[in-house]
């Protein structure tokens, strides 16, 4: 079977997964069909609710920028990120230094 794979530890068949997705999708569509049927396109029901405020015309005024994503994660990991940012300081001399130090370390390790 072209789509089937035995890794030596387990078994994988992509079409089993695709079949699973089809079943789940069919179930989701069935649940959706049980919902309210009185929705009307192009009426006020279509409008964005923005905490009761008037919605700005330009999407740029109320979209979440990528920099704000995972803010909590970044704050929690701030000490590590400070270290990593210092490492990636953009200085070519430092970068060459990291390379030389790594080469030297590998050189020492292979001689052990």
């Amino acid at each position, binding site marked *: 079977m072209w789509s089937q794979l035995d890794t030596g530890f387990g078994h994988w068949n992509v079409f089993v997964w695709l079949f699973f997705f089809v079943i789940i999708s069919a179930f989701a569509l069935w649940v959706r069909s049980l919902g309210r049927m009185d929705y009307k396109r192009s009426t006020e029901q279509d409008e964005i609710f923005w905490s009761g405020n008037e919605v700005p015309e330009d999407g*740029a005024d109320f979209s979440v920028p990528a920099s704000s994503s995972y803010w909590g994660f970044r704050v929690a990991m701030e000490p*590590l990120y400070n270290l990593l940012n210092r490492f990636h300081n953009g200085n*070519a001399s430092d970068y060459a230094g990291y390379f030389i130090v790594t080469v030297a370390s590998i050189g020492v390790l292979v001689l052990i």
Partner: protein
Amino acid sequence: MNLSDHLPAFLVMIPLLGAFLTPFAGSFNRGTRNAFFVTFSGLTLLTAIALCLSTLNGDVLVYVMGGESFALTLPSGMTYPVRILFEIDAFGSLPILCIAIASFAGALFSLDYMDRFSGWKRFLALYFLMTAGALGMCATGDMFNFFVFVEISSIASFGLVAFWRDKPEAVEASFKYMLISQIAAMLLLLAIGTLYGRYDAVNMAALSAMAGSGTLERVAMGLIIAVLAFKCGSFPMHTWMPDTYAEAPSGVTCLLVTVSQASFYGLVRVCYSIFPGLAAGGVVAWMLIALGVMSMFFGVLMAVVQHEIKRLMGYHSISQVGYMLLAMGVGLLALGSPEAVETYGRAAIRGGIFHSVNYSFYKALLFLCAGSLYYATGTRDLDKMGGLARSMPWTAGMFVVAAAAISGLPPFNGFVSKWMIYESSFAVHPILPAVAMITSVLTLASFVKVFQAAFLGPAKAKFVAVREVPYGMLAGMAVLTVMTLLLSLFPGWFTSGFFESAVNALVNHQSYVRAVMGGM
């Protein structure tokens, strides 16, 4: 004369011819120039496909340049092969195929992407040179020519990264890459010189047959491993990668991804085929595992917080290379014991090779998607993008395929190769798959952010006029999407047909030696 006998020579000759003919083609009109670009890239791809198919049954193709016969590796009276020699086995043919496909996709993409810029002569010549250099790295059978091809691809890439000379960031990225690359090149040459001084030979098969375990061999091997780990973007020598990938034109970045895989190929070849006695089962294997784990984890940590799309993807490249290093390190660790090879070694090597092929396609596709976004919006800053799925549905669709694949979501190919790596590395230590899984989760988080920021959300007024990118660019992306989907739908066929032969070629390195040295 049977043309198929000369496929290894055509593989490098076609892109080199393309590079040397470029000064004439550059004077042609747009249509002729585009036809020239696509024809030479397409011919290279056809040659790579033919080569790959001819190595599937385990044959090792050998081609000698300048001898009385192209198949005569050891003329009478010679102990070692001395001519320029190409040697391609099932493992070597895989990166060759990936490079040729990425080069073809990048060429299709660049037809429209680069159309509004001048300097086509330079662009075409450097593009073909980089392709020839990368293909040569995977085809050559001797270390000195390997060095030459590394330099050809590196020098071409310095020029291509700095192609937009009016952008200081591009010139700076190219300079940094050039600075460290040249130090690396000197160390590589020093290592090859050391081996030549010791054995009077630079042929890989001859070195494999003769290599001992003395101090000189260890130092040479250590230098080569360090240089090639740097070239494929391993932590902590990865610092050139995000800048370089971000600033190069996207068609070039697509090819750079596979050029890094040519270095990865060299690294694996050195450990598995040239110095298996020194590298297997010991400190070198653990070193690769450590480099892999650090690359995976720190690469993805840096990627999560980026908001410049190509820079973010550049950090993900480091993380993905980490998976491959981990897998090949685990395989190398097992190589010391026949029992371990059968228990988890072959699975690890298979996973590493599978992931390398997957990475070549989905990562190249992601960079082309990023290029499409830049082409349409004029920015690479995710903070400024948004709501583009409505106006760029094809790009959005292909981005979803690539993002799901790199994040390891079932049923995509990235899941299958990562799964093989998880399983096999668990046999060494449970912490290894744990780090790999955390990395995969963070990769998913990162690409969810990219998709949300670029394609979802309310439409922005400044992007009202944005339309889907031209057909040429879509065609380039479609080639890589099709490859990603094929690998997702038929992993069993690719594994039994391609990857298993490559695993056999690495585990039984004697076949690589015998193809050149005979019954020695």
